[in-house]
């Protein structure tokens, strides 16, 4: 693992041209079978949306994959955020993550704070989050 610095940025394309099938796949895995996400006829004619849209939790789950690409999952202490806009089939989502703070814990480790912003192809933010991780051997990592 590399060392970190405040202001360091990471990004990752989470999905290109989101497919309705992936919404069904997520529904099955998560157990959330809300027809707003899986049933286009219902979403249009009953709920009066343009069609099915993505589970907010699918967007958040995809967003979190960058966090666990960058730090060990066992180091993550908090991950949360707000759903800012809906995600539609056909969307391409990219997460932008930045290190906003590093605090030495005085015992050779450090707390690292992250901000995460997931945006669609039109740069509309769909999820805005923060996370923190505690790295036990941060000082050693930093020294190498």
């Amino acid at each position, binding site marked *: 693992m590399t060392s970190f610095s405040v202001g360091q940025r990471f990004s990752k394309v989470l999905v290109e041209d989101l497919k309705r099938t992936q919404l069904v796949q997520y529904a099955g895995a998560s157990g959330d079978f809300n027809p707003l996400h899986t049933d286009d006829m219902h979403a249009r004619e009953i709920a009066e949306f343009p069609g099915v849209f993505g589970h907010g939790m699918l967007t958040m789950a*995809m967003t979190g994959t960058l*966090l*666990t690409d960058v730090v060990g999952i066992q180091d993550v202490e908090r991950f949360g955020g707000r759903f800012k806009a809906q995600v539609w089939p056909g969307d391409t989502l990219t997460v932008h993550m930045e290190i906003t703070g590093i605090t030495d814990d005085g015992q050779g480790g450090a707390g690292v704070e992250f901000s995460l912003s997931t945006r669609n192809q039109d740069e509309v933010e769909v999820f805005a989050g923060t996370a923190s991780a505690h790295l036990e051997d941060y000082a050693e990592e930093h020294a190498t």
Partner: protein
Amino acid sequence: MGDEQFPVESLHVLTFARAIGDDNPIFSDREAARAAGLDDIAAPLTFVQASAHCDPDYPLRPRAGEPWFGSGREPGTRHPELTRTLHAEQHFEYHRPLVVGDVLSWQVIPGDTWTKESRTGGVLEFRDFRTEYRDASGELVLTSRSVTAMTGPATGDR
């Protein structure tokens, strides 16, 4: 503490990781997970949402012999709450990594309710609740805080 249990199983974790497009081997390969310092295959950060499968009262799952509000021959019906409820915020606090083999129980703690005017002039009703997930020994594994937003019955706010 609720009586229901959510066993974290490897095929379920793999299915979930596939659904979110994450091919990180710590979610599918025990050796890779152990090499990364975990006791077993890890569950993705938001996997605990899938405990819905084990919630007998979870409303967003069709049940044999019971009406379902989705479409068939007809487009279905409005659900009095769910059709107009959206997820506004979600926050997780991790006390230790969730891994295959864990069996979680959970307790929901209702929080605040408040209202706010929406962009289209309707009223949004927010509800906040926390859920504590504990392992078989009663140790806190993670805490979830959710905020949902429900639009007023007469508006078409989105």
